[in-house]
């Protein structure tokens, strides 16, 4: 049984782990290296690799430290270039829709919609066979998937709330436009869940909620009502 954990999940920092049968895959490293080490119990020996979705700091802050700690790091060419780690011997380049094997994990990266160079989402097949989809920092999920056990997707804002925040002067219109073009709303997350076969899904994780434009409890309730599955909303950290 694959175990997905959100250790930090916001525009201030992101760190997730997927564990199965003693092996761990780390997703994102947008935190201080100390935070990452402590999340992994100060032992990186069980880590098969690190996946980085894109080069923004809240997803990749301590990439240099992770590389130095002998962890193989996987990311797109665009991400590697932007982070300046393209030439590192532990950097492995991922290409959209080309799967790789990472120490018993199978990872199929896919292109997503975000204002970074070559951002990716991941379909992950754990050593035990569980399938997990991870898509964060994307306007929407371009694909559908089969036989998923775990879904970990962004629910950054609700359209009503962000509209209200613009109307009240809480946020600038230009900021809203950036958010709606680059992040997934709860409405679009619900559409994604409606579009996929959830019959084998055990749990759904909602990630990367924005501070002012979201409502964790309402989001959890909406997804639970739609799917009837256990829903976990990631805490900021």
């Amino acid at each position, binding site marked *: 049984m694959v175990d997905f954990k959100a250790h930090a999940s916001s525009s201030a920092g992101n760190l997730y782990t997927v564990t199965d049968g003693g092996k761990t895959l780390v997703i994102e490293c947008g935190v201080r290296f100390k935070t990452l080490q402590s999340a992994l119990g100060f032992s990186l020996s069980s*880590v*098969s690799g690190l996946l980085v979705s894109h080069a923004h700091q809240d997803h990749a802050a301590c990439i240099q430290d992770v590389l130095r700690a*002998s962890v*193989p790091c996987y990311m*797109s*060419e*665009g991400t590697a270039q932007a982070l300046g780690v*393209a*030439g*590192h*011997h*532990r*950097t*492995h*380049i991922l*290409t*959209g*829709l*080309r*799967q*790789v*094997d*990472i*120490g018993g994990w*199978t*990872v*199929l990266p*896919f*292109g*997503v*919609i*975000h*204002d970074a*160079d*070559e*951002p990716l989402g991941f*379909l992950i*097949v754990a050593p035990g*066979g569980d*399938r997990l989809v991870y898509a964060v920092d994307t*306007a*929407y*999920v*371009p*694909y*559908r*998937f*089969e036989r998923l056990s775990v879904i970990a997707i962004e629910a950054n804002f609700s*359209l009503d709330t962000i*509209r209200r925040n*613009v109307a009240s002067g809480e946020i600038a*219109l230009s900021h*809203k*436009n*950036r958010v709606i*073009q680059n992040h997934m709303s709860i409405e679009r997350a619900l*559409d*994604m869940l409606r*579009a*996929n076969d959830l019959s084998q899904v055990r749990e759904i994780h909602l990630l990367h909620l924005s501070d002012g434009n979201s409502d964790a409890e309402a989001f959890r309730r909406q997804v639970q009502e739609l799917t009837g599955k256990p829903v976990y909303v990631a805490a900021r950290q």
Partner: protein
Amino acid sequence: MSVPQAQAQNQSQPNALALVKRDTVDVVAARIRQFVQDGELALPANYSPENAMKSAWLILQSTVDKERRPVLKACTKESIANALLDMVIQGLNPAKRQCYFIPYGDQLVCQRSYFGDEALVLRVKPDANIWYGVVYEGDEFEYQMERGLRKITKHVQQITNIKPDKIIAAYCVIEGKDGQVIHTEVMTIDQIHKSWQQSKTYRANGDGPHNNFPDQMCLRTAIRRASKAIINSSSDDYLLLERVNRSDEVGAEAEIEAEVEANANGEIIDAETKPAPAEPQVAAAKEQAPAVQSPAPQAPTKAPPAQQAKQTRLGEPGF
């Protein structure tokens, strides 16, 4: 709801059109009259809402969406009426290319062009003067900072400097009475590219207007930004400001929602759990040379090709 297809087919064309016109143009015209009577809307003296409406109606009859459907059939009457209202309240005339009508899915949006931005600046500052230019490599270009504001003092250009790939900046200056500078916008080419990256129609190495008419598009970006600063800060015309913001907001929302509608949750992809031997085998345990390959064709990381035809009118500068 858009016009019911069956109805549109059963009736002669003019009749169906007349119905749409009644529910949009006539409704909007009545609302505008009401606004003016109530003193809520002061239209510029030289602006004729009737003429703008006539032009808009003519243009709309020949505007189609990317599936070649007439927008008057494909878009909701409510969104058509709102687009017309946006146009009139902002005092824009589509015949002067101050705005365009763009369909996103079933939503019609009135999008201001930069000519429209200039018209709005003149509306809130009737004696304003707007001038602008593109700076090329080799130009002599100087400005001074005066109390935190830029003041351009010199721009000398040799005609031989004008090369589309050698643009280094663009500027736009808005002056008030007696040549007093109200706002100066100077944008470096990097800042301009950053701003373009926010646009769904821009591809760095594509074949769009940004690539084919970089000088025009750089000017447009600088003018838009300078105009925005003036429009947002100097009008106390609440109805106008609300409409300016509404149309900007609705446009951005409709655009992304149409893209989501077209591209989200598409084809099913799956991983083979026995990796194909052609894949680079990377064992986490053993270090090896980096598997740096040249990237193969990518899944869409920006809008997929289907999106590229979204903007049918962008193939020319001045949009």
